């Protein structure tokens, strides 16, 4: 049984459907990243799970209990037993760190002594035990993040929801906090849904990644699967660096490319037009290659060079450790098994 099950969730704002029949499940103790561009409906989905938005249709099940059935909220926020970290953290500025964390415990009727124990324990877990009496405004960005997480997990929720918690902090701190989130989630084994538009966050933190676009779930799977076997053109172009070239299907397993006819498995694809997909690192520059083009730009990146190559006006990206001159005519090959068609 999944700890969280979302079925055919639909949500409209001003008659516009922003979440269009999204379904997914999260296993107990797993971290699922909802990944997608701005406005794709990921935050709305998260807020529906939290009970902050009412779905127009669909079901939400938390640990086998129906939480929402369409517009009907079957169980209240309290009964859902959820912890949430907001994008702006939403730490109450007029309360100390201790009081911020204590708020949810009081709501759950925990005794004073138990509250103290739990708060001490959670502050210890996030390495912030010396800051209990501080006000949030006195803490650094990273410390505030940790307090927001501590506040969300102190009640030992069934489900932890995180809405882009790293979006407002700088790159260096981001890495540190990301590691902390991973450690805390693995230690506590709280089932977590993590909303982000950052692929790095999603791939480094998640057990599973669900890619959303335009209110729909495009693909769900483990990070490696999402990267190496995208099932839609959107996922292929959104995740990592990609070359997507318009080609023509000439017949069964025969494709007309800018480099001539390619015989490969088109996976039963029919119709005239298709898109050929491969990643820059999947191509190898070598004199025996069947594909060709002229280098029109070169950028140095750690560990090699990135090239923009043009063949009959069609541009694409390649990667190589050897330095080639701009204007040079090169040949390269791509493993047929790496090529995908959409």
């Amino acid at each position, binding site marked *: 049984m999944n700890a969280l099950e979302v079925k055919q969730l639909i949500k409209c704002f*001003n008659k516009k459907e922003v979440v269009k029949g999204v379904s997914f499940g999260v296993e107990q103790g797993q971290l699922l990243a909802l990944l997608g561009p701005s406005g794709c409906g990921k935050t709305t989905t998260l807020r529906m799970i*939290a*009970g*902050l938005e009412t779905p127009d249709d669909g079901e939400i099940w938390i640990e086998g209990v129906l939480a929402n059935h369409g517009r009907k909220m079957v169980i*209240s*926020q*309290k*009964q*859902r*037993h*959820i*912890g*949430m970290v*907001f*994008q*702006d*953290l*939403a*730490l*109450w*500025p*007029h309360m100390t760190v201790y009081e911020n964390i204590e*708020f*949810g415990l*009081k*709501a*759950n009727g925990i005794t004073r002594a138990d509250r103290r124990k739990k708060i001490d324990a959670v502050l210890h877990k996030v390495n912030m035990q*010396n800051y209990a009496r*501080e*006000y*949030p*405004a*006195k*803490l*650094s960005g*990273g*410390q505030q993040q*940790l307090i927001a997480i501590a*506040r969300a997990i102190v*009640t030992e929720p069934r489900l932890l*929801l995180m809405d882009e918690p790293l979006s407002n902090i700088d790159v260096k*701190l981001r890495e*540190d906090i990301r590691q902390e989130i991973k450690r805390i989630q693995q230690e506590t084994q709280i089932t977590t849904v993590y909303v982000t538009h950052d692929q790095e966050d999603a791939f480094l933190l998640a057990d599973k990644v669900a890619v959303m676009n335009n209110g729909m779930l495009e693909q769900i799977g483990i990070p490696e699967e999402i990267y190496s076997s995208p099932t839609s053109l959107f996922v292929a172009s959104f995740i990592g660096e990609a070359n997507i070239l318009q080609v023509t299907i000439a017949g069964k397993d025969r494709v007309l490319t800018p480099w001539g006819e390619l015989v490969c498995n088109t996976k039963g694809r029919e119709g005239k037009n298709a898109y050929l997909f491969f990643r820059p690192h999947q191509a190898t520059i070598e004199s025996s290659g069947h594909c060709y083009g002229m280098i029109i730009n070169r950028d140095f990146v750690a560990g090699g060079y990135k090239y923009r190559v043009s063949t009959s006006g069609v541009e694409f990206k390649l990667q190589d450790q050897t330095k080639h001159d701009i204007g040079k005519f090169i040949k390269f090959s791509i493993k047929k098994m790496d090529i995908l068609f959409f």
Partner: protein
Amino acid sequence: MQKKLTLGVFFTLFLATTFLPIVWMFGNSVYEEGRFSFAYYRDVFLTLKYGKVISNSLILASITTILSSLFGVPAGFFLTKTNLPLKKLFKICFFIPLIIPSYIIGIAWTNLLGKTGFLNNILSQYLWFSPSSISDFTYSIYGASFILSINLFPVVMLVTEYALKSINPRLEESGLVVGSVFQVFRQITLPLIAPAILSGMMIVFVLSLSEFGVPSLLQVNVLTTQIFTQFSAFYNEKAATAIAFPLIVITFILIMLEKIYMRGKSFEMLGRTSSISTTQYNITWLNVVGITFCTLVLLVCVIIPLSTLIFNTKTISAYHNAILLARNGITNSVLFGSIGATLLTFIGFFLGYLSEKIRSRLKNSTAAFIWIFFAVPATVSGIGLIKLWNRAEGTCQFIYSSLWIVILGYVIRFLPLSSRIMANYLKQIPNSMEEAGTVTGTSWFRILGKILLPLQGYGLIATWLICFMFCVGELGTTILVYPPGHETLPIALFTVMANSPTDVVSALSIIIVVMTLLPVGVFLAVSKYLVFKPNQNESVEYF
């Protein structure tokens, strides 16, 4: 559920206190001798009987709007875009005319420009005006417009300041690298702030259209004074209601036009981030013009009227006499003002929440519906209250003959204002603050008590003070509804004006000024202790 119920109760309270009296009054005015009759409305709309009064009202509002803009727009510009010395002092002083009741400024200027006034003497001596022509001008629609523009120019100034501060400075800077300051102002800044200025002008127009105190003081025959005359002199409340109708119609049309015009024209926070500050023009000649202009405005709007009142009182005994005469009024004003301000803040908080924090398609309509009642003239509100509460039965009679009718008058007049202020303060609290409490499953009352109200503390105090100031100065509704023995300070002032020497009237005016300005002064002095600030002294370790 708790939230919906509470907000429902407070919206019903708004309907009962503010909406019902007005509707009741209009309903009553079209019902005569057991049948519907639009006779009084026919008089207003289909005959020329009230044409002069209506045109007077429109002229008064138009001139006031133009004059207020001539004072307010440059003042807002100089205080935001230049490096004037004493900028903060100017800013504080320019608030004073808005805070003190308009009729006090009227009293001061009539003392100066009346037949025996100090300034009248000088002008008639050195210029070709006769004393009576100056006095006639003061007691005319133009004099009333001048005084009202002194009272209302801070509205335009504030709107201009806010609009200028809201513009992304990068927009102006990108113009300044290729063009002159004047060109940038004319082609970039001005078009960006124009919608906001127009909106401020509309507020001034509506407020001067519904003003009663100054036209009444200067005996100018406009719609509001005509309503008062019809009601209190001829006891013809139906005619009074019918005369009020054009005011409501004009106001409604203006608000609708403004809403249509402003649609999609909000330049608020135009790509602006908090870290960049407003572009300032550091040009010597502009600073000289600015300081000269602001000093002149300060003289005309604050220093001259207030020093005239102080100078007129001459002796301490004038204050003593004034206090003796208006002792009851002072006590009542403090008591009624405090109760009124407390009720207004409390109900205003929930109405503000309703119009700001509830996500609904009706949100904007609710806010506009509440706000429209601010434009209802004070005299109209007064008649509405009388029509609704003046009955023989127990509770109604108790309310009608006690302080509560005056307090209801304050509520009907200023509830739209207090809810608007509260809505603006609530806007600054991110929704996530409340949601972070909601996900813990705690009750809405606890979220209210532990999160929203403490975060709103500053707003609550500020709203209370603003409401107190307005309540203490309120005249138009109170003059119609106050029961015997429950007169307030403005009523005492208007009574004293008829039969007391100038020094006592001036002394009483100064007392009203002090009563309205004192709470603001105290608030400004102690506000740094009231605003929540964590202790900054202890050392901080960073992650």
